[in-house]
């Protein structure tokens, strides 16, 4: 049981696909201009991850090794097509905004990696737990990034839905750059750097900008 817990937590935090492993960067940057888009993209990806994980785990003994990767892609593409059709039918607004990036889930490194490196080597239960962990890890990361950018860029959270929250008051002048491409890169860069700091076990405030290592070197020199 402990192992399964670990599988789950790993994906959420210590091996977070976005902030630690830096996988599937394209959608991470492209769709996180609002928390809504981030959340939806995260869920869509999680669904494919989940489905592909189960199927690939079940098929692990059936698929011959030579055609492993192509088969994975077919399986993934099938689930992506499902997501695509469903989202276009039920969430046309968001699907419109995400446009290209729903089909591009097919080539998301994260899903391919989990299929290849994990799901096809373990039993279905572990594959499911892993997919849930990674999927949620991916989803919260996207929502988090989308949230930051949306708050800075619009002053709101979850725009485009009925439960939109006005986080910052009228006084706030929206910072347009946050929702531009440049803002995507910069926000992610800063968050990943912060993650590096937090994940570093010997973390101290001095380390925040890497001072100590350099200073030590100067002193020995």
């Amino acid at each position, binding site marked *: 049981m402990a192992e399964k817990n670990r599988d789950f937590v790993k994906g959420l935090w210590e091996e977070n696909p976005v902030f630690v492993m830096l996988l599937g960067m394209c959608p991470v940057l492209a769709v996180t201009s609002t928390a809504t888009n981030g959340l939806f993209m995260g869920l869509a990806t999680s669904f494919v991850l989940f489905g592909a994980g189960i199927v690939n785990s079940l098929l692990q003994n059936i698929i011959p090794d030579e055609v492993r990767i192509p088969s994975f892609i077919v399986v993934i593409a099938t689930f992506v097509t499902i997501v695509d059709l469903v989202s276009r039918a039920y969430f046309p607004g968001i699907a419109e905004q995400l446009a290209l990036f729903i089909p591009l889930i097919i080539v998301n490194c994260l899903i391919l990696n989990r299929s290849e490196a994990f799901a096809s080597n373990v039993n279905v239960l572990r594959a499911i737990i892993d997919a849930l962990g990674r999927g949620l890890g991916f989803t919260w990361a996207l929502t988090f990034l989308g949230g930051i950018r949306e708050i800075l860029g619009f002053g709101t959270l979850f725009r485009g839905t009925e439960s939109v929250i006005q986080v910052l008051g009228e006084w706030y*002048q929206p*910072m347009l750059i946050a929702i531009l491409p440049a803002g995507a890169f910069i926000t992610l860069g800063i968050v990943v750097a912060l993650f590096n700091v937090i994940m570093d076990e010997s973390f101290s405030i*001095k380390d*925040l900008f890497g001072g*100590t290592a350099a200073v030590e070197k100067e002193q020995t020199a």
Partner: protein
Amino acid sequence: MDNTLDLTVSSAPHVKSEETTSNIMYQVILALVPVMFASFYFFGPGAIYLLLTCGITAMLSEVAVQKLRGKPVTINDGSALLTGLILALTLPPDLPLWMAVFGSVVAIVLGKHIFGGLGYNVFNPALMGRAFLTLSYVVSMTEWTAPNGGVDTLSTATPLEGEAEVINLFIGRVGGSLGETSALAILLGGLYLLYKGYIDWRIPVGYLGTVAVLTTLVGEQGASFHLFAGGLMFGAIFMATDMVTSPVTKKGRWIFAIGCGFITVIIRVFGNYPEGVLFSILLMNMCVPLIDQYTLPQIYGEVKANG
């Protein structure tokens, strides 16, 4: 083996020139004095507030980052102050001060210290601050007030969008950013820097020359308007010439300058943004590492060796 003499050893050379980094920075600040006076003359005390805000914020940010990183604080070298002043001079006179603060912090932290501090930055820090503000607060960054004694036709449009007499542009009696309006003051500072050898003539000449040639060919308003309007003069003399972010080779500087001129004209004539100086210099900053690598001068004796 006693040694009462207490000698020092080091490898050659044992003498060094008197020039220092901070001296260079303060000389450039000195060259900015006419521009700062002009900004005060045309825009009144508001100019001083902006200059002070940016200068002080930039220096405080520098201290904060260096303290945080546990590095020696090098506030005295003048580089942060210079960045702050240059940033202020590129801002519209009526910009809310909190935006100026924000821009200065971005310039120092994002423009300079994420790369490791002075000397390591790839992009011109002041321009980074300005670009960040431009893209964040489009409206505030494009509201120009008419200067004292100016022609009062430009209260909302940037000089590049309105009609303006070239002589007014030259002296600075048009709306615009603090330090960009008076070509006269900028040229004064520029001549001083050229005379002192703190900037390479190739960059302003190449930059302005390219703009002049191209606007004569394609521009509707003619070369003299383009040369003196907007931030071109200030950019060509004080920002494109920033040592850290321009090429070190002579050939490279020509390429850099001509590239800046080319992109500026493209943006001014075809682009969405009225002003191209800011982005053209940033875009060329990006190319500097490559330019440096591929414009190595022919070394002494290389011709014959190959021939």
